[in-house]
């Protein structure tokens, strides 16, 4: 069987270029934000921006947007698992 035309979604080059532009802007933004001292907000901002960038890469470059729902659920679960591992460990370290 061939990889059928109808179940695939071909993203246009222009859209990819736009995503790339977005990623670039975020990169500049994160470097800029790091230059100003905002205390603990700095870390939060850096992680937030990184997460946005990651989201862009996953949804468009990695095509998750056009995959079955099952794939989205799986990705979500894996990320949550990692978050739980890190989160529960933090019930130890700061409370010692």
């Amino acid at each position, binding site marked *: *069987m*061939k*990889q059928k035309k109808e179940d*695939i979604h*071909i*993203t*246009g*080059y222009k859209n*990819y*270029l736009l*995503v*790339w532009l977005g*990623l*670039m802007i975020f*990169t500049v933004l*994160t*470097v800029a934000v*790091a*230059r100003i*001292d905002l205390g603990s907000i*700095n*870390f939060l901002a*850096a*992680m937030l*921006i*990184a997460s946005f*960038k*990651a989201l862009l*890469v*996953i949804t*468009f*470059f*990695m*095509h998750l947007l056009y*995959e*079955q729902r*099952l*794939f989205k659920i*799986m*990705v979500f679960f*894996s*990320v949550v*698992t*990692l978050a739980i*591992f*890190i989160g529960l*460990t*933090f019930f130890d*370290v*700061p409370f010692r």
Partner: protein
Amino acid sequence: MNNTSTIESHKDYIGAKMGMWLFLFTELLLFGGLFLIYAVYRYSYHGGFQAGSGELSTIAGTVNTVILITSSLTMAVSISAIQRGNRKLCLAMLLATILFAAAFMVNKYFEWGAKIHHGIYPGSPELLSNDHGTVLFYGLYYVMTGLHGLHVLVGMVLLSIMFFLVYRGRIDSTDFVKLENSGLYWHFVDLIWIFLFPLFYLIT
């Protein structure tokens, strides 16, 4: 849940992609263990991490970020190109991706080289004379960027194979799941760097 149509066929494209995604989850948790360690030590040794990060070149880090993001773009375009049957563009874009990967590694090489030249590498007396936080910062820096670098190298090999397969016509507009999966891997490598960059180069 009706998969009747795919069962009899020899090649299951969705299955192949599912396998790749599952593999990426294990990769995510592999790096996840390191992110966990990083988070704990950054929490315990904030000062040391700041000091260590100050020594890293933000410029080198930013350049590498731009390189990797752009390589992700070329990777994505190469897949779109093969889907549309544009083999030439696909090959050109793949080549560009491989070259960007090489540029990333060269940059990394100089970055590590400079640090090692200054006597800052795991277990070096110079490094151990610092406080614990800085020692751990550099320990993690070498391990995490090292493991990431290893993934970049593997990606280069993988993409070179894909280049060959496209060149030979074994990947074409009707059967391109291998290229898609390599693309997924490559974007994942980019994804990890998106987090490594602020974690190591941008602590204030």
